[in-house]
């Protein structure tokens, strides 16, 4: 709460980004104490890591300071207090916190908790709900992420001139950032390995496609920040990343179509193999792979687009300064 109020009062946007990351980390630890380990994992990776990073890149292009407000925000305060009052009145009737016999726990959830092991056979109930019982919603989510990536490309597609001057600038950075370059090179394979571990271990512990995709993208972003965009695009070129993003969605959809062709309903994994449980395992594995691919690729697309635009602006500023001398 203190962090939230500090965000309101601070004018320096850089500090606001740091406070936002701290807020993300605090919510993640809060989720852990509330027994929501999958959610805490995702919030820590996404809220504390990626969102702070994106804000920083955006701020580097738009400016750090916020102007003073011109008039006193009385109407806004009034609206806010009224809404708060109504909400307080609304929650006074809800059941007390964490009671086991609240209505939310009694109708749909016990069926999932009891039947998940028999029907699907993986210990992590959240993954089984996300990937098998509610696979269609997760499909919609993957498409939303893909659309967001396409939206960012459409808004920020930079023209690819000025490729020669980039190489000269990078060679001078080698000596200055030696320590962190060495450490990054050492840590990079371990981070990728951890991403793969989280991807495939999502059935047995907290994890799954989303967290793995975000961690993978974070490793590549770290590499890109230190070694420059041109070295990163040698391995992960723009067209490859866009292809992987689309391929993830296609993989997910093709699992559904395969189940249709094999005689079941859409996303009914029981039809995929000899026994229903084996079919469920195969189905969950393939769609988690699709989710991981798309999430990693879209995060990389977003960061590459921002980075390219920022480098182009920096290059244009440098050329302007040189011409004016």
């Amino acid at each position, binding site marked *: *709460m203190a962090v*939230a109020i500090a*965000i*309101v009062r601070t004018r320096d946007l850089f500090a606001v980004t740091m406070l*936002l990351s701290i807020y993300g980390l605090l*919510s993640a630890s809060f*989720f852990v104490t*509330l*027994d*929501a*380990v*999958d*959610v805490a994992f*995702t919030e820590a990776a*996404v*809220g504390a890591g990626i*969102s702070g990073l*994106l*804000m920083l890149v*955006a701020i580097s*292009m*738009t*400016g750090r300071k*916020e*102007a003073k*407000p011109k008039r006193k*925000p009385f109407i*806004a305060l009034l609206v*806010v207090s009224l*809404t708060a009052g109504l*909400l*307080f009145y609304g*929650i*006074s009737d*809800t059941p007390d*916190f*964490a*009671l*086991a016999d*609240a209505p*939310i*726990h009694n109708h749909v*959830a016990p069926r999932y908790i009891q039947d998940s092991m028999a029907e699907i056979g993986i*210990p*992590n*109930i*959240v993954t089984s*709900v996300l990937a098998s019982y*509610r696979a269609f919603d*997760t499909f919609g*989510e993957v498409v939303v*992420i893909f659309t*967001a990536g396409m*939206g960012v490309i459409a*808004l*920020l597609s930079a023209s690819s001139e000025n490729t020669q001057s980039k190489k000269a600038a990078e060679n001078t950075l080698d000596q200055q950032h030696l320590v962190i370059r060495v450490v990054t090179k050492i840590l990079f394979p371990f981070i990728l390995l951890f991403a793969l571990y989280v991807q495939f271990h999502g059935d047995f512990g907290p994890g799954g496609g*989303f967290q793995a995709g*975000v961690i993978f993208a974070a490793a590549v972003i770290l590499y890109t920040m230190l070694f420059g965009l041109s070295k990163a695009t040698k391995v992960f070129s723009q067209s490859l990343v866009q292809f992987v993003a689309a391929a993830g969605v296609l993989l997910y959809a093709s699992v559904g179509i395969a189940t249709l062709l094999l005689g079941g309903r859409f996303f009914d994994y029981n039809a995929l193999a000899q026994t229903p449980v084996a079919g469920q395992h195969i189905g969950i594995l393939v769609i988690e792979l699709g989710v991981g691919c798309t999430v990693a690729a*879209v995060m990389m697309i977003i960061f590459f687009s921002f980075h390219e*635009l920022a480098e182009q602006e920096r290059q244009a500023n440098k050329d302007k300064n040189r011409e004016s001398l």
Partner: protein
Amino acid sequence: MMGHFNSAVVIILMMVGLYIVIAQGNLIKKLVGLTLFQTSVFIFYISMANVEGGTAPILAQGITLYSNPLPHALILTAIVVGIATTAVGLSLVVRIKAAYGCIEEDEIEASEN
């Protein structure tokens, strides 16, 4: 009343986020306020899903009481979709800056008139 402590915290956080979105003029600060608002909604759902004396919803030996896994799945989806929309919002802000030259709401409205 102590049973509703979590909901009280959530409502305060939600109102702080709403205030930032309505009252502050800087576009990036508004996006930050939106993220704050989203996270407070997540905390609300997760605290509803908690069961006293239960553990995380991963089946293990000898444990019978689990937290409700349905809101967990919902919030997992919501977190990742939230970051995707924040990314699109940030790219919109960058484009607005290129088109108008500043990102304060008052100045943009003034230059429109």
